[in-house]
C-alpha cells in the first residue's frame, strides 16, 4: 500500500477561487466538516484577475432593471443554448449574493445616495455591474477568504489533485500530493465539490494563469462524469498585444463601459459596420448616442463596442486579417479620446480604471489617459464544463458537485461580462448547500486501495525515465496547435489536423522525463497538468467538429451561419467503455411558457 497521509471531511471542496470559497462557506454554515484544497496559496486564485464587476439586477442605478431583464440578456448572450433554469436561478439570486458580500465586508463603489454603484457592460441592457474600480475580483475573493478563515474550514494550500476516487459510481474523495514536499495525500469525503476554474492554458494567447489547465474538467471526465458545451470557448476581445511578454493579459471591458472605443489603423471606428440583427434594437447607430449611453443617459442605446464578446472579437479579427490592424497585430482601444468630452479626463480615467492605468504604464510604457492601447483577442473563459443539475449543481455522478467556470450551463454559447463573478457566488453557494445535504444523508464509502496504488505508480513514472521529452516544450506545442487550429475561426480540415497533433502529443507525453526530486518541482506539476490539458483540448476539438454551425464563441468558417437544428441541442463529451472519447447531441429541454414570455417581453 502506498504511503500517504489521510484526511476525512464531510464535504471536500477542490479549488479556492470565488466558487470554491463560497461553497466551503455554505457547507461550513450547514454544520458539516469542510476541507478546502487550493492549487496555489489561499487568495491567489484566478478570481483576483476579474476586473469589471459582478452582474446583479440590484436596480440601484436604473430602476427598470429586474431579474427578468438580466435573465433575458443572459439567454440572448448565450444564443439560447443555455441551461435556462440555471440562467433563471442566477438572475434571481445574484442580488442577494452581492448584498451578502457587503455584509461580509466588501466595500463596493457607491452611488450618490450611498448604495452599491453599478456600471455598464457588454450585453447587459442596464448598468448592472457592481464593482470596485477595476479590481472587483480581488475584492470578492478577499471578502470570501476573510469570511471563511473564521469558520473552522481546513485549508490545504499548494496541493495538486491527480484523481477522483470512487466507490461504484459515487465519488468519495481525491488523491494527490502537496507541492511543497511532494508527499501523497488522500482525502476521503462524503461529497466532493469541484470549483477548479478554466482551461486557458490550452492556448498560446490567454489571460489565464498557469493554474488554468482544465484539471477539474479532465479529472471529472476520467471519473466518468459528462462534459457539455466544450466547443464554446470565449476569446475576450481585448487582451494586451505588446510587448510580447505581456501578450494576452486582460484589458477590462470596463474600458469600453467607461466610453472607450475601438479603431483600426485608419482611425476608423469599425464596430458600427456590423451589428447583428438580434441586437439592432438595442444598439446605438451613431457615435453621439453611444457616448450618451456610457454617460448614463437612460434614453440612449449602447455603443457597438459593448456588443457581446464573441462578436467584438470576430470584428477585431476581421480588421486585422484584412490589413487594417495596428503595428503589432491588434487594433486600437482608445479611452484617452474622452478628453474631448469631459474636463479632467486624465483624473477621471485614473479613478475609474486604476489598475489598467498602472498595468499599461508599468508593462508597456503607455499612458492610457494620453494614448490609445493596442489590443487583440485573448483566450479568456470556457463556457463548457461539467454537466450539472441546475438546482443542486450535482454532476452526473452521485456525491460529485461542480460550480463556477468548471461547471457548464449558465452561459450557453457565450458568457456576458460580469456574469462570471455572479455565477461563482450564486452556484458556489448552491453547490456547498447541496453537497452538505448530500453528506448528511450519505454514509462513508470504501476506498479501493488497489486503485490508489495504481494512481500513485502512474504519477511517479516520469521520474523513472532518464532522458526524454521536456514537459514545457510539449505544453508549448499544444498551445500553438490549439491557437492556430481550434481558435476563434475554425474549419473541419484544421480541426482534424488538431486531433492528429493531440494524439502525437499524447504519445510524446508518455516519454517525458523529470529532473530533480519531488519537492516543489514545476516540471512534475507541468507534466501532470499536461495530461489534463490534452483531454480538454480533445473535448474542445471534437465538440467543435460536431457543431456544424456558428454560434456565440464557436465560429466555423465552413458553416458560418446559425443552424436551427443545433439551436435545440447541447453537445456532450464523455469517456466511452473503450476508453475513447464519445460525443453525443442531447436535446435541450423545452423552456416553460412563463420564461418564454419573459424573453418575448424583453426582445
Amino acid at each position: 500500500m502506498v504511503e500517504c497521509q489521510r484526511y476525512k471531511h464531510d464535504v471536500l471542496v477542490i479549488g479556492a477561487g470565488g466558487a470554491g470559497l463560497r461553497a466551503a462557506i455554505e457547507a461550513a454554515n450547514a454544520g458539516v466538516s469542510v476541507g478546502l484544497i487550493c492549487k496555489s496559496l489561499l487568495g491567489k486564485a484566478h478570481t483576483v484577475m476579474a476586473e469589471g464587476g459582478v452582474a446583479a439586477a440590484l436596480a440601484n442605478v436604473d430602476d427598470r432593471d429586474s431579474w427578468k431583464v438580466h435573465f433575458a440578456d443572459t439567454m440572448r448572450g448565450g444564443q439560447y443554448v443555455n441551461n435556462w433554469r440555471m440562467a433563471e436561478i442566477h438572475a434571481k439570486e445574484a442580488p442577494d449574493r452581492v448584498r451578502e458580500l457587503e455584509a461580509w465586508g466588501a466595500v463596493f463603489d457607491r452611488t450618490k445616495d450611498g448604495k452599491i454603484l453599478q456600471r455598464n457592460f457588454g450585453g447587459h441592457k442596464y448598468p448592472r455591474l457592481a464593482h470596485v474600480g477595476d479590481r472587483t475580483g480581488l475584492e470578492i475573493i478577499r471578502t470570501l477568504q476573510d469570511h471563511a478563515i473564521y469558520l473552522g474550514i481546513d485549508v490545504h494550500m499548494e496541493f495538486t489533485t491527480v484523481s477522483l476516487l470512487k466507490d461504484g459510481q459515487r465519488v468519495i474523495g481525491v488523491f494527490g500530493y502537496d507541492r511543497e514536499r511532494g508527499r501523497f495525500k488522500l482525502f476521503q469525503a462524503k461529497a466532493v465539490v469541484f470549483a477548479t476554474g478554466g482551461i486557458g492554458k490550452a492556448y498560446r494567447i490567454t489571460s489565464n494563469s498557469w493554474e488554468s489547465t482544465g484539471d477539474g474538467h479532465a479529472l471529472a471526465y476520467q471519473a466518468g462524469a459528462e462534459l457539455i458545451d466544450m466547443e464554446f470557448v470565449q476569446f475576450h476581445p481585448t487582451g494586451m498585444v505588446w510587448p510580447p511578454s505581456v501578450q494576452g493579459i486582460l484589458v477590462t471591458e470596463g474600458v469600453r463601459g467607461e466610453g472607450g472605443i475601438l479603431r483600426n489603423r485608419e482611425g476608423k471606428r469599425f464596430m458600427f459596420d456590423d451589428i447583428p440583427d438580434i441586437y439592432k434594437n438595442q444598439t446605438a447607430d451613431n457615435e453621439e448616442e453611444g457616448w450618451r449611453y456610457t454617460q448614463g443617459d437612460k434614453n440612449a442605446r449602447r455603443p457597438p463596442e459593448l456588443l457581446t464578446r464573441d462578436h467584438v472579437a470576430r470584428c477585431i479579427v476581421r480588421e486585422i486579417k484584412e490589413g487594417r490592424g495596428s503595428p503589432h497585430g491588434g487594433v486600437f482601444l482608445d479611452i484617452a479620446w474622452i478628453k474631448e468630452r469631459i474636463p479632467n479626463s486624465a483624473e477621471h480615467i485614473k479613478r475609474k480604471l486604476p489598475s489598467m492605468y498602472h498595468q499599461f504604464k508599468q508593462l508597456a510604457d503607455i499612458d492610457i489617459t494620453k494614448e490609445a492601447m493596442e489590443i487583440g483577442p485573448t483566450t479568456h473563459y470556457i463556457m463548457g464544463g461539467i454537466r450539472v443539475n441546475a438546482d443542486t449543481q450535482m454532476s452526473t455522478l452521485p456525491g460529485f458537485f461542480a460550480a463556477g467556470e468548471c461547471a457548464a450551463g449558465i452561459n450557453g454559447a457565450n458568457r456576458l461580462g460580469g456574469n462570471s463573478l455572479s455565477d461563482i457566488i450564486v452556484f458556489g453557494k448552491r453547490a456547498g448547500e447541496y453537497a452538505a445535504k448530500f453528506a448528511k444523508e450519505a454514509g462513508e464509502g470504501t476506498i479501493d486501495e488497489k486503485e490508489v496504488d495504481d494512481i500513485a505508480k502512474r504519477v511517479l513514472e516520469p521520474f523513472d525515465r532518464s532522458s526524454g521529452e521536456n514537459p514545457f516544450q510539449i505544453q508549448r506545442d499544444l498551445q500553438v496547435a490549439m491557437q492556430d487550429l481550434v481558435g476563434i475561426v475554425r474549419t473541419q480540415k484544421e480541426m482534424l489536423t488538431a486531433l492528429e497533433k493531440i494524439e502525437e502529443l499524447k504519445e510524446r507525453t508518455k516519454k517525458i522525463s523529470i529532473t530533480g526530486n519531488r519537492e516543489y518541482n514545476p516540471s512534475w506539476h507541468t507534466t501532470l497538468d499536461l495530461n489534463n490539458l490534452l483531454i480538454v483540448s480533445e473535448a474542445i476539438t471534437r465538440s467543435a467538429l460536431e457543431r456544424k454551425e456558428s454560434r456565440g464563441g464557436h465560429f466555423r468558417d465552413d458553416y458560418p451561419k446559425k443552424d436551427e437544428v443545433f439551436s435545440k441541442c447541447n453537445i456532450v463529451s464523455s469517456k466511452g467503455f473503450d476508453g475513447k472519447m464519445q460525443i453525443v447531441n442531447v436535446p435541450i429541454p423545452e423552456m416553460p411558457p412563463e420564461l418564454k414570455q419573459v424573453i418575448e417581453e424583453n426582445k
Partner: protein
Amino acid sequence: MATATFRIWRGNKEGGKFQDYTTEVSEGMVVLDAVLRIQAEKANDLAVRWNCKAGKCGSCSAEINGIPKLMCMTRLSELSLDLPVIIEPMQSFPSIKDLVTDVSWNFEVKKKIKKFSPRKADASDGTWRMAQNDVNRVQEFRKCIECFLCQNVCHVLRDHHLHNEFIGPRFFVYSANLEMNPLDTQDRLEQLKDTQGIGYCNITKCCTKVCPESITITDNAIIPLKERVADEFYDPLKKLIRLFRKKK
C-alpha cells in the same frame, strides 16, 4: 538576440547557493519572464511562485538586486544588464525551495484579528448606505494583494524576528481596513496594543516604500491606528473612566 545573465538562488532550508543562467532577452520582458524561460529551457525544476503575471495576485515576491519587488512587474529595462541580475527569495520567511518561501505565518496571524462585524442594516432589504467619500480610505487598504513584501522589509520581523509579538505592516493595513470601515462595530485597539505589537513600529516607512499597490501604509494605516491606541489607553481622562468601568 541580446542575452543577459541571471544569478538565481537555488536551494532549500538546509542551504543553497547562487547559480548563473544566461538566457535570451527581448523588448518588454519582466524578470518573471526571464525566470520562466530559464525554467523551461535550462532548469526544469527551478521553483518559483506566480499566478497572474500582472501584479494582481501577489505571488511572485522576491528580492531583485537586493530590492524587494514583484518579479512580474519588474521590467528588465529598469535594471542594468551589464552585471548579472541577482534574484533571491524573500529573506524574512523560511525557505521552501529556490525562490519559494514559507509564508504560512501570515495566514495564521490574520485569523487572530477580530473579524468584520457590521452594524444593523440601514434599510429593510438588509443593505447599508455609505458615501463614496467615507469609503475611499478603506478602499485604499483593500487594494492589498497580500504579496507580503512589506512584511519582508520591516526590521521588526526581518532583523528582530518578533513574529510572536508583532503582526507586521500587512496586518496593520488589514486592521485599519476593518477599524475604519464605516459599518464595523468591533474594537481591535486593545489587541493592537497588547498582543499585536503596534508599539514596535517606529515609523521607518520601509513598508510603504516597497508596497507595489502604493498603499500609504504608514501614514494612512499605522499612524492613525497608533493615534487611536494612544487616545484610548494613554489619555488620562479615558484611563480613569476605564478604571471605573472595570470596577463595576
